[in-house]
C-alpha cells in the first residue's frame, strides 16, 4: 500500500504544481484573448484548445520527441539541471501544463469577456491605467473564473494518463501517478487495490465538479475531462 500512498502524494503534488504554474501564465493569455481585437486571436484560441481534441498519446509522443535529451530543448534542460526532462517529474509538470492549458484558459477567458466594457471605461476615466484596470477591475471580477479554472486544472491533471504513460513511464516516486498505478494493478490482476484507488478518484472527480458548480455558479464546458 505504501506504493499507492506514494502515487497519491505524487499525483497531488503534480496537480498542485501544474495549477500554480499555469495560473499566472494563463491569466494574461486569457485577458488578451478576451479583449484584443487582433485577428491572430482565432489561431491562438485553436492552439490553446488543441489538447481537448488531440489524443493524449499524440501529445505525449510529440513531447517525448521534443523534450528528450538529444534535442535542443531537452539538452538545454540537461545542461541547466543535470537531469533529463523525459521520464522525470519536471517533464510531467511541463506536459501537464500543456495538457491542461484549455481548462485554465477557457474559464478565465469567459470570465474576462463578461467584464463589461462600460465598467472598464469608467475605471479609465477614474485614472486607472490599462495595467491598473487588469489587476484591480478585471481580476477581481473574474474570481469565479479563477476558482473554476483552478479546480478543473487540478482535477484534469489528476486524471491524466496517456501523456504520462508516453513521456513519464512508470517510475515509483517520480512519474508513477494514480492512473498509472491503477493500470498496473489491473495488469497484475490486483483488482482490490485497483478498486480502492479508482473509487477514490471517482469521488474526487465528483467533489471537484460539485465544488465548481456549487460555488462558481456558472455552467462550465467540459469537453473531455
Amino acid at each position, binding site marked *: 500500500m505504501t506504493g499507492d500512498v506514494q502515487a497519491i502524494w505524487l499525483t497531488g503534488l503534480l496537480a498542485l504544481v501544474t495549477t500554480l504554474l499555469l495560473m499566472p501564465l494563463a491569466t494574461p493569455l486569457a485577458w488578451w484573448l478576451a479583449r484584443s481585437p487582433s485577428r491572430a486571436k482565432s489561431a491562438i484560441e485553436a492552439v490553446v484548445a488543441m489538447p481537448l481534441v488531440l489524443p493524449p498519446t499524440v501529445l505525449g509522443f510529440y513531447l517525448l520527441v521534443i523534450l528528450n535529451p538529444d534535442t535542443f530543448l531537452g539538452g538545454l534542460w540537461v545542461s541547466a539541471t543535470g537531469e533529463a526532462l523525459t521520464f522525470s517529474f519536471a517533464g510531467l509538470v511541463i506536459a501537464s501544463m500543456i495538457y491542461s492549458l484549455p481548462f485554465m484558459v477557457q474559464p478565465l477567458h469567459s470570465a474576462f469577456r463578461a467584464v463589461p466594457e*462600460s*465598467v472598464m*471605461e469608467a*475605471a479609465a*476615466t*477614474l*485614472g*486607472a491605467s490599462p495595467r491598473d484596470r487588469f489587476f484591480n*477591475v478585471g481580476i*477581481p471580477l473574474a474570481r469565479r473564473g479563477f476558482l473554476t479554472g483552478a479546480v478543473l486544472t487540478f482535477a484534469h491533471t489528476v486524471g491524466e494518463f496517456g501523456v504520462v504513460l508516453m513521456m513519464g513511464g512508470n517510475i515509483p516516486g517520480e512519474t508513477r501517478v494514480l492512473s498509472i498505478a491503477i493500470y498496473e494493478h489491473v495488469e497484475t490482476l490486483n483488482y482490490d487495490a485497483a478498486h480502492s484507488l479508482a473509487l477514490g478518484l471517482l469521488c474526487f472527480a465528483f467533489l471537484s465538479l460539485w465544488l465548481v458548480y456549487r460555488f462558481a455558479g456558472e455552467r462550465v464546458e467540459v469537453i473531455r475531462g
Partner: protein
Amino acid sequence: MSRRLVIEGQLERADFALQLALDIELSSPVGLMGATGAGKTTLLRVIAGLEPSFRGRITFCDEVWSDTGDASARFVPPHQRGVGVAFQDSRLLPARTVRGNLLFAMRRAREGGLTVTFEDVVQGLYLANLLDQPTESLSGGERQRVALARALLFKPRFLLLDEPLSANDTERRLTMLAQLDTWFSSEPIPVLYVSHAQEELRRLTQQLIIMEQGAVRSRGATEALLNGVTDVDGESSDHSVDEEAIVLVAGGDQLSVVLQRAAGTALAEQPDLAPGDRVLIRRVPPDISGRDFTLQPQSDKDESETD
C-alpha cells in the same frame, strides 16, 4: 493659462455622425442639452477620450489631447486626461461596495482639482446609509449619486456630468443641485453638465449649448436660451400648428410638463395643465428654442440613452 476647450473634428458611425467645431470658455459651468440621439453623450465620450475613432483635434487648457493630423498625431488616453465623468448609466464597479467605489476614485485622485472631502460628498449626496452596501442592491437614483460622488472624489481637472441627478426625486434633486452649485462656485472647476431639466441648467450653468443631430444648433447664455423655450399652445389657433400631443406628466418640477407626441416625448413650460389634457404644440423658430427634447423618466430606474 486659458481655461478653454477647443474641439474640431468629426466622428462617423454607421447611423450617426458627430460634426464639431467648438470653442468653449470654461470659467463657468456649461450646460448641454438636446434631444435624445443628438450626440450629447457622444460628445462627452469624445472629450473623455473614449472614442478613439474621432478624427480631429481636441485641446484643453492649451494641452493637446487628441490630434489626428498626419504630422502631429497625438492621443492622450482617458486615464491621463484627468477628466471625471458621471455616466448617465452610472457604471459603478461591480462586486464592490459603495465605499469601495469611492475609494477606487480617491486612490487615483489627482493633485489639485476639487478639494471636496469624502465627508462632504457622503453628506451632500445622501450616501451615509449606503456606504457598506454592494452596488448591485442600489436603486437607479442611488447609483447616480454614487457615480457623481465618485467623479467628484477623483478631483478631476474637468468634470463631465451626464444627467447626474435625473433618476432622483425632485426634492432631493433640488437640494443636491444647491450643493453642487456651492461646490462649483467655491472653486471654479470646468464643468460640462448634460440635462433635460431646465431648472437644473438655470441653477448651475451660465452658458448653454444645444445640440441637434450631431452638431451644435445654438449656444449662448443659459437664461436667454431657455426663455425661448415656450412652445405649448393650449387652445388658440392663430399659430401654425404642427401636431397634437397629450400631457403625460405635469407638476413634476413646477415649470414643465411632459408631452406625448406622435414622434416621442417633448417638454414644455405650461404649469396649468393636467395629465391627459390634449394640447396642440407649435414648432418655435430654431434659433431661439431648446424645444423638442425628450425628458428622461424621473423614476428610480436607469434609462440608458443611445446617443
